[in-house]
């Protein structure tokens, strides 16, 4: 059975699925980074993170449309819409943390999670009411490059841009965390928050920064996926959020390289599963994978198992 599926489309089909998997994987990785960073620092599954990504997509849609109506050149639209999405998403991330999570920092573990679920429902409906419940056609921001012409039927320009942008974002993030002051403070805080506080690190600021950076990455993911799929609505954050969370757990939640690896593994799995088996159960694959990892290797591919202190 399986063999029939596997080569049913030949080599070209395989490569096409591979690149489509990489593209999906890049976006999952971008969103997964936000989950993993927040979890690493305050141990919270930020359920509203998917909504941040959705808001990023909406913001860029709105700003890009306004600019194009006023006749801005394409390059300016792309850059400005991207910036706007990153800025507003970060602002949302920052505000959500202050409103819904910070007052609960010493509450029982489940309280911030319930608060996060509430925030996620709130944001979905906020966008639904303030904008629309319909699917919106997302403008094709990225024009097709001429040099991609010969391979365009396998790898689109958008795919290439997505993969490259993701790589650049990862690189930037790695530099930030390895070498900057705030990056060091973040690493210290994630290892031991009390100790970090004692040596004079402003933990509140570190947590805020984590949310801001994570949200900006999610916003970039938002624009990329919106221009890839070509449409958005208020509900896209939920599924993408769950999948990105799966990616983060798969790689080992709390681990940054883990989130990237997890994103790619999930993206490729989904792409091949839908390509060779059935597209009806696309989301079931992701959810199933999540359940399996949590059951059999909750520390993920690159995570560390934690020892319970008594």
């Amino acid at each position: 059975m399986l063999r029939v599926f596997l080569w049913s489309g030949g080599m070209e089909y395989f490569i096409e699925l591979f690149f489509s998997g990489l593209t999906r994987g890049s976006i999952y990785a971008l969103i997964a980074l936000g989950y993993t960073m927040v979890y690493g620092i305050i141990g919270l599954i930020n359920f509203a993170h998917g909504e941040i990504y959705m808001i990023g997509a909406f913001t860029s849609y709105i700003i890009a449309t306004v600019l194009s109506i006023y006749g801005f050149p394409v390059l300016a639209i792309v850059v400005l819409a991207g910036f706007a999405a990153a800025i507003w998403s970060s602002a949302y991330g920052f505000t959500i943390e202050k409103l819904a999570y910070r007052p609960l920092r010493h509450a029982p573990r489940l309280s911030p999670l319930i608060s996060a679920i509430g925030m996620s429902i709130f944001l979905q409906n906020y966008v639904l009411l303030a904008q629309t419940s319909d699917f919106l056609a997302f403008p094709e921001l990225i024009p097709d490059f001429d040099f991609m012409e010969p391979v365009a039927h396998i790898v689109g320009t958008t795919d290439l841009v997505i993969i490259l942008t993701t790589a650049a974002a990862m690189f930037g993030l790695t530099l930030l965390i390895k070498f900057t002051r705030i990056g060091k403070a973040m690493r210290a805080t994630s290892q031991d928050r009390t100790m970090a506080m004692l040596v004079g690190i402003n933990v509140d600021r570190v947590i805020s920064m984590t949310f801001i950076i994570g949200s900006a990455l999610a916003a970039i993911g938002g624009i990329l996926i919106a221009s890839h799929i070509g449409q958005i609505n208020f509900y896209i954050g939920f599924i993408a959020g769950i999948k990105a969370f799966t990616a983060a757990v798969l790689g080992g939640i709390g681990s940054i390289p883990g989130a990237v690896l997890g994103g790619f593994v999930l993206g490729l799995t989904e792409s091949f599963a839908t390509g060779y088996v059935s597209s009806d159960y696309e989301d079931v694959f992701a959810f199933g994978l999540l359940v399996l990892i949590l059951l059999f290797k909750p520390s993920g591919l690159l995570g560390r198992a934690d020892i319970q202190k008594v």
Partner: protein
Amino acid sequence: MISLKESKRSALVSLWFMFLTFPIMVIKVDAIEKTIIWRWENMFYVGFGSFILSIFGRIFFERQKNRREKQLSEKIQQHNLIQILLREPKYLYPLAAAFFLFALTFPHLFSTYQINVMTTALMYVVLGLGLNIVVGVAGLLDLGYVAFYAVGAYSYALLNFHFGMTFWMVLPLGALLAALFGVLLGFPVLRLRGDYLAIVTLAFGEIIRLVMENWNAFSQGPSGISNIPRPGLLGFDLTLNQAITYLYYLMIVMVLITIFVVNRLQNSRLGRAWIALREDEIACQAMGIDKTKTKLTAFALGATWAGLVGVIFAAKTTFINPASFTFLESAIILAIVVLGGMGSILGVILGAIILILLPEYLRALSDYRMLAFGAIMVSMMVFRPQGLISNVRRHYQYRPQKGEQE
């Protein structure tokens, strides 16, 4: 009461929110018609609203802080009015009797539509009480509760469709199947840590829904199953109105049974073990409580109620499809438990009635219903984590046994 400095801070907060909500609230674009609508009035609403809320929030926090300090210094457990009312049989019994009378006469006083709405609210009361066992008492955050509800509903729909089984035959069977699902799902997942458990249950809930949506041969897919018969009454033919009234009374009985059972469970050896497990898993195990078994019973008992209500839901609407069993449904039930007060039976009843009836009657609110659910969940966690009615532990009376000198 509010100093200049405070109002300045609130003004800054409102400016921030005006900026934050600017693209989503103010601009509305139409990419095809190439038109922009600027809704500046929204910016004003946001600014004004957040200014007021910020002032209220600050006053609230100030008061809460003062109260906490006072409580710490005096070490007095505060009891509010409701709790005093509940403890005194003198007040409790007449109150309960009045409620019961009202519930009995309700169908004769109000229209069919109102009865239907009330029946729905009662269904959510039972669902809330069921989930309360899992989340409120045992402290296991189950985000896929709706899956068991779906198991109940599909049991009735399918067993009736294929084998012609009646409502009364399937009602216990649906509960049993849901409990079985609870055990099957609970067994592997219950060893997970709290927040992982939440996500896995959510994933399971979604998987069940997605399977129902795609496995056409089994569940008839997204188009669902229709013409599910309403419950019969000893072979009488009921008119639609009678059937609705009948279902209402059925639900009243269900609610009473649920309250009775849940109350007894909470104040039993098992109930204490659930609470202890919620408070401290390790200490609980060290005191000789079997963690897996105890969690599993909570999970399965919670699922049982969802299964029961699922069967009734299928019978009430006579049509079911997977769209009724989304994650949002789980979230609504969770919001009921959180709003009412985790672990408190009366709180959950109140929570269900507020969250289900209020949007029904305030039509203007119904669009904002889900928005309000979200906001309630957040603000409850921040401002009043114990819910509307906090759970008070039972006081046990010590009676010296015969032959003892005390």
